[in-house]
């Protein structure tokens, strides 16, 4: 199992948070005063991952070259934690020719084949794809693994259940990750799900199911490490459900009027909590926090400058890339 490096975990979480915070700011800047979702340098829906950093960082810390991730519509944290280039990703979010997908994908459709990273805007549909990637890995005799990520709302999709069955049946090296952020847009789990534990559902397919209750990066790190090691060793798939936190709206512009837990959200932010724990244990100083944050800000700034300076695709390029 990968050795635990607390500072690395903290640094990566801060890097993601600074990124999302800046995207949040840039996204809204040129949509004022009148809100128009299609306006501005970053148009369209925007699903930011603030609060869910422990899931991505704890899982991706164990991944190596050749390991795959299929992420859902809220993909930035997993993309960054998995090593997707921040500049190319940002340029894609800005719809530029230098983007990962030359401006054709956007923030819900980020593809980085070098890092075997992809995401899909359709709920739970990355699960079967990850099974196929895992199938290819075993067929080629590698010890790579595929990680499929979805939210708790996705676990009612047929694709989720078909994938668990397929992966268990074929003993595929897949780790299924459920990010339970309490909300499927506006619907709480009790309003959508008869069996509220996805760890139970894993049992139904004969694979181990673990729930990590408290959005703690070290807990995620440890559980993910065990699940990924198990998959690498050819012992088959596992499911990890991480009780995490949607710090912001489902998408930017979501007023969250339905949300009864809003006033407690800031207190549950996992990053200050982790910083406090590390500081108390003597593993982190205020100076280090400042340095780590400044370094993240600098990287984010550079990525955004790169994106804004990059060319906008020519309209006729819309006709390219339908076929290889």
């Amino acid at each position, binding site marked *: 199992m990968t050795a635990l490096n607390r500072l690395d975990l903290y640094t990566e979480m801060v890097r993601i948070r600074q990124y999302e915070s800046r995207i949040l700011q840039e996204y809204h800047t040129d949509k004022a005063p009148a809100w128009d979702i299609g306006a501005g340098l970053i148009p369209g829906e925007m699903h930011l991952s603030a609060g869910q950093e422990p899931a991505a960082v704890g899982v991706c810390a164990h991944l190596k070259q050749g390991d*795959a991730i*299929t992420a859902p519509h809220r993909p930035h944290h997993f993309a960054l934690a998995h090593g997707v280039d921040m500049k190319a990703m940002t340029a894609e979010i800005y719809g530029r020719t230098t*983007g*990962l*997908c*030359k*401006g*054709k*994908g956007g923030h819900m*459709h980020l*593809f*980085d*084949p070098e890092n*075997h990273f*992809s995401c*899909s805007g*359709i709920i739970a*549909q990355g*699960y*079967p*794809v*990850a*099974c*196929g*990637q*895992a*199938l*290819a*890995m075993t*067929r080629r005799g590698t010890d790579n693994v*595929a990680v499929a990520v979805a939210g708790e709302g996705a676990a009612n999709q*047929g*694709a989720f259940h*078909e*994938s668990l*069955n*397929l992966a268990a*049946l*074929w003993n595929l090296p897949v780790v299924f990750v459920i990010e339970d952020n309490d909300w499927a847009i506006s619907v709480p789990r009790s309003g959508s799900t008869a069996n509220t534990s996805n760890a139970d559902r894993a049992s139904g397919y004969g694979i181990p199911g673990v729930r990590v209750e408290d959005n703690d990066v070290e807990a995620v790190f440890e559980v993910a490490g065990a699940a990924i090691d198990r998959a690498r060793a050819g012992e088959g798939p596992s499911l990890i459900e991480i009780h995490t936190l949607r710090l912001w709206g489902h998408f930017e512009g979501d007023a969250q009027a339905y949300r009864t837990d809003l006033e407690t959200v800031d207190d549950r932010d996992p990053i200050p909590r982790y910083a406090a724990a590390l500081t108390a244990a003597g593993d982190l100083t205020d100076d280090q926090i400042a340095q780590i944050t400044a370094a993240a800000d600098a990287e984010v700034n550079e990525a955004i400058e790169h994106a804004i300076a990059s060319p906008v695709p020519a309209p006729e390029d819309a006709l*390219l*890339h*339908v*076929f*290889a």
Partner: protein
Amino acid sequence: MTTTETPIRRITTAKAMAEAIGLEMQANPDVFVMGEDVGAYGGIFGSTTDLFGEFGPERVLDTPISETGFIGAGIGAAVEGMRPVVELMFVDFYGVCMDQISNHMAKIHYESGGAVKVPMVLMAATGAGYSDAAQHSQCLWGTFAHLPGMKVVVPSNPYDAKGLMASAIRDDNPVIYLFHKGAQGLVWMEKNPRSIADVPEEAFTVPIGEAAIAREGSDVTIVTLSLSVQHSLDVAEQLEGEGISVEVVDLRSLVPLDRQTVLESVSKTGRLLVVDEDYKSFGLTGEIAAIVAETDPTMLSKPVVRLAVPDVPIPYARSLEYGILPTRERIADAVKGLMA
């Protein structure tokens, strides 16, 4: 059509498909097959006959009845560089897995700005004529062809079945390969003798995107595909005795569509009949008519005639089913109508 020196054998369309897959599997370890009953059964319509015995369960995978799961898995394997040949048993089952087909298989290459390739074949049985009713008798090729990002091939005979399958497997794009149950040459279904034909033993390809002139003629062009090609050829032979010279264009591919061959034929005959076993409205017949209209409507001496399923689900009772299919009789009547 072939310059091979190896002996020519007469085999069924089904056997030709399986043979092509087997040859590609021999040549490339990345090729594998999965689907429902493709293993020991050999495919409900024979498309994987004998492959399980030759390649075993590691490369010919029987799947659960779980189309979203295994078509999605095919996509995942393809993006990792494998070349899966995945069977959707009946094309009618597209409803339970269309998201993987349309939103993923067909879009990933484009969404990724060309960075990711999905070299996958999705084959499915199509077609009516044996009272399997509304949920097991559709063609639906127009539906797939309408949605961008998939090549769509539809062979009408054993030779094309083999050559198009080889091309589909070697193609770097997702290819929908639709075979008509009535053209498979199955022993348990009425078949046209054209479903058994001469096919070389060795591997060869038929290019995707090239229509074939299945029969040359000068009076009327029939543009069609799949089993309707066999019917149209029968009609053409019959009408030859009545002094009508029919040219039959077998499209073979819908995406890409060989517009040039269609236009050349129509410009020669001046009369166009489009025959399609898919639904009539918003489909192939309208598309072919539009190509002619957009290019030069004056090449037509008569208005286009479209013969297709008249926008009803496929009914069960034989009398009802044959009441809506493009039968030889209807094709012959339509040709005569154009000549009147």
